[in-house]
């Protein structure tokens, strides 16, 4: 919980990872390129005093994660959203066993989401059923730019993908987090396009689709589909640190999301270990839309409380202590031509 100016904020960090990018786990040059790219994100968008050394960045371990999130970071509950990246890392990028062990030890603080790859077809589908039971899955994280064999991506509306979504629905896995990346098959398409999520959200109305990075770099396409699909939500991974480097751009992102969606469908995350939650939470509570940007209404305390934790808590049935909750707004999807 974070308290400021007499207000108490229940914090859910909806996207965290326990990764291992150390050289001994790198399968090839792409493992190094991938973590270097993350480290450049980290160095480029963090305040100077929050920048880690490269060695720290490669691997944190469970103890450090618990400290950064819960001791120092005000977080009440965090959700693992692992990326497998099996083509780049020998034991995968997200550390399944370590993260699940930590979750088992701290079930009140952590939720473990797993991942699947529909290109593994029946074998992966069988594994999904076992994983759902073993991990008690409420959600999954899907990375459509994952490399697999000679394919460097997939779409959420591919036939096998739909079989996985149907199975997830049967198994009670309701929350589908989607992360777009730079590659797709076929490679001539725009890999960041979210049209496939639009189709899936229409065909699976009982599932929640949380698009990570709120669709960035295709914010407008994301907003357009989220306006029409009430089960599409915005994850703020990667968007949050723009508060520091470019507050006016961050104001535009939040302003657009509040305009096209509403305050009940936006989720905070630090994207740990890309960034740590402490400074992001402190700055977000202090953040305000600049006064001259009159196209957007000022952010309210209630909106900040929902974004920082209450929205994700509702999606994941995470109990919110008495007195900290705020009721959702009733709003129909805006009708568009």
């Amino acid at each position, binding site marked *: 919980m974070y308290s400021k100016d007499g207000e108490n904020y229940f914090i859910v960090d909806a996207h965290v990872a326990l990764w291992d990018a150390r050289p001994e786990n790198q399968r090839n040059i792409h493992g190094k390129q991938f973590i*270097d790219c993350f480290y450049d994100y980290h160095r480029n968008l963090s305040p100077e005093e929050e920048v880690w050394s490269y060695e720290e960045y490669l691997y944190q371990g469970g103890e450090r994660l618990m400290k950064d999130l819960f001791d120092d970071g005000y977080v009440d509950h965090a959700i693992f959203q692992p990326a497998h990246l099996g083509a780049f890392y020998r034991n995968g990028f997200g550390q399944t066993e370590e993260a699940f062990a930590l979750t088992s030890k701290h079930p009140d603080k952590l939720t473990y989401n797993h991942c699947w790859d529909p290109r593994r077809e029946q074998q992966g589908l069988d594994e999904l059923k076992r994983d759902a039971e073993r991990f008690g899955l409420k959600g999954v994280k899907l990375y459509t730019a994952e490399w697999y064999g000679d394919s460097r991506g997939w779409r959420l509306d591919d036939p096998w993908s739909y079989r996985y979504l149907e199975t997830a629905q049967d198994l009670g896995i309701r929350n589908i987090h989607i992360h777009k990346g730079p*590659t797709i098959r076929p490679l001539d398409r725009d*890999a960041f396009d979210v049209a496939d999520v639009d189709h899936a959200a229409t065909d699976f109305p009982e599932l929640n689709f949380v698009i990570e990075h709120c669709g960035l770099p295709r914010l407008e396409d994301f907003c357009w589909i989220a306006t029409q699909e009430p089960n599409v939500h915005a994850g703020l991974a990667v968007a949050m640190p723009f508060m520091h480097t470019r507050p006016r751009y961050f104001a535009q992102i939040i302003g657009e999301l509040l305009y096209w969606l509403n305050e009940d469908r936006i989720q905070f995350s630090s994207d740990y270990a890309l960034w740590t939650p402490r400074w992001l939470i402190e700055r977000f509570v202090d953040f305000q839309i600049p006064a001259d940007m009159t196209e957007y209404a000022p952010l309210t305390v209630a909106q900040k409380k929902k974004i920082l934790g209450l929205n994700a808590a509702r999606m994941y049935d995470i109990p919110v202590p008495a007195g900290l909750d705020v009721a959702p707004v009733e709003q129909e999807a805006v009708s568009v031509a």
Partner: protein
Amino acid sequence: MMQAWKALDEVMDPELDEPITTLGFVRSVVLDGDVLTVHLRLPTAFCSPNFAYLMASDAKDVLRDLAPHVLVVLEDHHDSDMINRGVAADAGFVGTYGAEASRDLEELRLTFQRKAHAAAMERAVRTVPLERLRTLTLQDLPESKATEALRRRRSALGFGTAPDALVLVDDHGVPLPPGDLPLRLRFARSVGISIEGNAHFCRGLLRTRYAMEETA
């Protein structure tokens, strides 16, 4: 060399709607005998290979007449070898990527030319009152950078640039129905925010990646 740099000013990053020269993506241009060599670099090793390919092959195209041999080298990209080989052989995107690609990149380019047009259109009319928008023609716009940018984006898409051409058109050049204007312009504004935000982020990442001094 000036001629080569000037030619490269015409090569756009389709996603960011800016020339690769002002984005800092051209690291060097060197003429050695018959061979003109251009080194390109991008903000991350994982920039989308389709956009990387487009910029590299467009760079080669604009330089073709300036030297007997033109060599474009994309550095530090996860697909550098593949793209450099494909561009050197003029293999095209499908020829370079084989089964991974279903067609060449003109449709991808068109998608982003349309986005760039929508954003430029909204920027050009931002201060025009709603009641004037329906009949607004290019000659009604003040001579400004925004108007010039709109004309360029229209030309790229093959839309007319005559003084009496209607300003508010859809992605195909068809005039927007008056009832749609507020929502379409609101959406076009989001497109512009997206493009500008991405461009800023990419510049920052390039500086971080190559430890460059702030120039913009």
